[in-house]
């Protein structure tokens, strides 16, 4: 289906040719131009530590050299021009990416948790500190709540059709965590409501649904236009009916039930609003991607053999996450290009991720256990798999031309955070452990607000939220996040 001018495709041949579904194939369109490009903010998160217990003293996401021209350890291969261990070409974005190492989330006993700090327990206890900058004990709600940085940025960077995107690559939890706290769903994006309570924002895990949300309202310019307009009108008509019926239901409910359905109504209103605001494809690189089609099926959990060993050969705990992630990353890029959203929360994997590393990178283990029983190379490859999504987005932003001729990366910052680092584990009271929030690393890219790429900055126990605060500062917001203040000066 033609949407306008010429067809072209971006980012092809980047290691995805053999996959069953097409990477987003792009069709260029014309439309109205806009000047004064807005700033954009993307927060990615990986539910894995940056070391393995089997390699004491090795921080796998810390280059040896600091400053510019840093070396690329195996876990950072996707930033370079070489090929990863599992055969994926790098994205050649090292000049755009700065590595911040030596980061630390402080900890303390319950009741004595320092600002931005955590309890001694590790899993499920490190994401919120990094994304909100607030301290948190074992029980959510035990301390003051705050919105995550992506939600803060979405509110501050100006209204768009989507407002904010929340995506997750890992399609399902698969199995629960070893500490039996795996019932929750680890929302990355959090919103502090007016009443002080915290809303966990569900992530979209279906690429098909993400595509529909972003692009199905675009109307083609050719002979299909009339039918498409009719179908779009039909969607809006149906939503109008649902809105009316929901509104009339609310007064019949009890007070607490009213709050829930009122929130449901607000989401319906936002969806209706998105369809009403759906812009025509714009000038430049804003184009409607090819529909990714059906989602890969969601797999079951691991295949446990006798003796408790796991066979990683079948596609268990694996729902084609590489393909899902690449498709979602490309959609994020196009959503930013078309200014459908200016802020994105993007969780690659759940905390303590049990994703099948055999399927992802050819290591016969699950991703989590590469940080315990895996070799340094095994764990590096699991980390590199996460880094590759970050690198793909940075490359895509760099290569996308805005309507004013600038690069999209000139107006964007992208941060990648990790669940843990390497060092002292206050839970196990051991050193050189992956269950540690010492020696954490973060990646940051983008040229907005004076950010400089291509550097390795070794900090002395800076809080990782300061990397996020740096990104917020770069897009024009305060250089603080929650209880943590101050950007990482070396990034500017």
């Amino acid at each position, binding site marked *: 289906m033609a949407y306008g001018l010429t067809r072209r495709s971006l980012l092809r041949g980047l290691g995805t040719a053999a996959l069953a579904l097409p990477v987003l194939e792009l069709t260029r369109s014309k439309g109205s131009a806009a000047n004064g490009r807005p700033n954009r903010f993307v927060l990615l998160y990986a539910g894995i530590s940056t070391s393995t217990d089997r390699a004491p003293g090795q921080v796998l996401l810390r280059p040896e050299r600091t400053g510019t021209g840093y070396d690329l350890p195996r876990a950072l291969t996707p930033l370079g021009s070489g090929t990863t261990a599992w055969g994926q070409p790098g994205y050649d974005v090292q000049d755009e990416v700065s590595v911040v190492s030596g980061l630390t989330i402080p900890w303390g006993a319950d009741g004595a948790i320092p600002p931005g700090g955590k309890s*001694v*327990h590790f899993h499920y206890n490190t994401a919120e500190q990094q994304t909100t900058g607030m301290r948190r004990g074992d*029980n959510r709600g035990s301390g003051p709540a705050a919105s995550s940085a992506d939600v803060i940025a979405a509110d501050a960077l100006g209204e768009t059709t989507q407002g904010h995107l*929340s995506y997750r690559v890992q399609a*399902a939890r*698969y*199995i*629960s965590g*070893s*500490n*039996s706290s795996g*019932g*929750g769903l680890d929302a990355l994006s959090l919103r502090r409501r007016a009443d002080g309570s915290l*809303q966990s*924002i*569900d992530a*979209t895990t*279906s690429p*098909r*649904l993400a595509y*529909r*949300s972003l692009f199905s309202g675009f109307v083609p310019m050719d002979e299909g236009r009339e039918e498409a307009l*009719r179908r779009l*009108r039909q969607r*809006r*008509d*149906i939503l109008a*009916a649902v809105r*009316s*019926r*929901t509104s009339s*239901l609310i007064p019949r409910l009890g*007070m607490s039930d009213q709050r*829930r*359905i009122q*929130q*449901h109504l*607000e*989401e319906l209103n*936002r*969806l209706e609003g998105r369809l009403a605001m759906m812009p025509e494809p714009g000038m430049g690189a804003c184009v409607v991607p090819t529909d990714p089609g059906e*989602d890969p099926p*969601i*797999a079951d*959990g*691991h*295949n*446990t*053999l*006798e*003796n*408790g060993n796991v*066979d990683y050969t*079948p596609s268990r705990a694996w729902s084609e996450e590489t393909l899902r992630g690449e498709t979602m990353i490309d959609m994020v890029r196009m959503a930013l290009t078309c200014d459908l959203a200016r802020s994105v929360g993007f969780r690659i994997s759940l905390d303590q991720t049990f994703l099948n590393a055999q399927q992802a990178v050819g290591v016969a283990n699950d991703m989590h256990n590469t940080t*315990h029983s895996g070799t340094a190379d095994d764990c590096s490859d699991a980390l590199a798999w996460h880094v590759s999504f970050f690198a793909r987005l940075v490359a895509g932003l760099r290569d996308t031309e805005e309507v004013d001729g600038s690069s999209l990366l000139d107006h964007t910052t992208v941060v990648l955070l990790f669940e843990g680092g390497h060092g002292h*584990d*206050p*839970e*196990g009271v*051991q050193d050189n452990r992956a269950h540690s929030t010492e020696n954490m690393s973060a990646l940051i890219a983008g040229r907005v607000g004076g950010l400089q790429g291509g550097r390795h900055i070794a900090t002395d126990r800076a809080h990782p939220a300061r990397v996020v605060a740096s990104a917020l500062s770069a897009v024009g917001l305060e250089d603080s996040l929650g209880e943590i203040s101050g950007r990482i000066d070396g990034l500017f």
Partner: protein
Amino acid sequence: MWRWTMVCVLGCSGVIADPPVDPPDDPPLPSGEVLTPNGITRLSALEYDRSVAILIGDDARAARALLPEDARTPFDNDYETQDPSQALVEGEELLAVEAAERLLEDTPRRDEVVGCTPTGVDDATCMRSFARRLVRNAFRREATDEDVAFLVDGEGPELGQWPGAMRMAATFDDFYEGVSGIVQVVLMDPEFLYRVEVGTPDPDTANVYRLNDYEIATRLAFFLWGAIPDEALLDRAQAGGLQDPEARATEAMRMLDQPLARERFVLFHAMWLGYEKLLAGDELGTAMRAETRMLMEQVLFEEAGPWQDLFTYDRTHVNALLAENYGLPVPAGEEGGWVAYDMDERRGLFSHGSFLAHGARNGDTSPVFRGLAVQTRAFCRTIPPPPPGVNTDEGPQSEALCKPERYSAHSGGRCADCHQHIDGVGFGLENFDATGAFRTHESDNPETEGDESTCAIDGEGYLQDVGSFRGPAGLAALGLESGALRHCFVNHVHRLVVGRGDVRRVDAEAIVQLEARLPEGEFTLSDVVRAVVTSEGFGLRREDL
């Protein structure tokens, strides 16, 4: 508000119990029965799929891929975890659009759902009869004239107004486009997506409402089927009488005969005991699923015998693959068959590979994780998380080769406070590997230097303050004799019915009352269902303020 989790601070007191029963926040009913509050509950993905199947015969089961994953606490219907979101609303919209598309493509099903043959694109009479029936079935209440007029005639032709099914049919010059519009609106309507309970205020008790017959029928359906009522149940509600506890029980017994009830209680036990996500989809895992499902169906439905038989049954249904894995005689035929257990240590559900997958880790079985699973899942014990100084990803750090010596570090000092309740349970299951196969020696861990297969397993376990045992059969016997299994089962039935994972003080008292309504000693699934649905509270709603 008082929270169950607060009991953790009490440490490992060794008491198998719900939280201490203090005066409840919510006063009891005049009859003395405790009524726990509940809030509006959204259909889980599983419930959505089953409900669409009942409503319009759509078996696509598409919700898992498109709705946000439901938390398990341990059930999937916990209203306190349900926050509306963009991902939710967009998923629901796409589900509705595609369910309508599938309906229109399947002419026989479409005609059955519509229920009349339109005389033309403008046949408003047919559209109204279809709308009336769909609203009733989807919203679990009588359709009003306003409902029908709204859906068929709409609000108006302007943008931002619902045009109604007749205008939609006219726009596309197709009667069934109007049908599609109604289906989509109804599937996205909160009255379908949520379990809306209103009722009428009870004159005797503040914040308490008497549910109408349709609302009670809906409670029955979600309890017993995990889905909306079918037309027969709605007809029963329309006829009235479900306010009467005995009438509810009669209806519930009819519902237990439906296949959906079997699916419901198979899944109930899997979520409760935590093996829902342990099972793989490979051939052995599939065989284990079948084994456990067959036990549930045999005990709870075919024999309708004591629920306790789930844990004492002396036969199991296996195919050749699973029989060989267990070392049992291989039954004839591909489908497998019932085989008698070959040893006293094996009995019932705890002997199944599906349950014994608990605690598989680090290339072996962990007595700690198995013990934890049994105590926290099956016996409702609250075990606090380990204190600082414990790495839960590894077994105890010890030079010793064999597990009893390695885990002996847990038997002294402060570790013993909790581990006396944990490790002994796991060691009593050590003769059975992570797939349920019998072994006399530990499995060699190739990642260690020593050969663990030289370590003989003695298989003796203990349940602190209760007694010692050998194997799954002995563990089950202690769980039954001590009352822990019975109590924990009732605890979870209550949580399923209320739709809340968090056990408050008032829930704890309600659980005690529910248990007291069961026959002493053995009881059947029917007894449990009867006890739930004949309670006064089953016909009442207390608002969760």
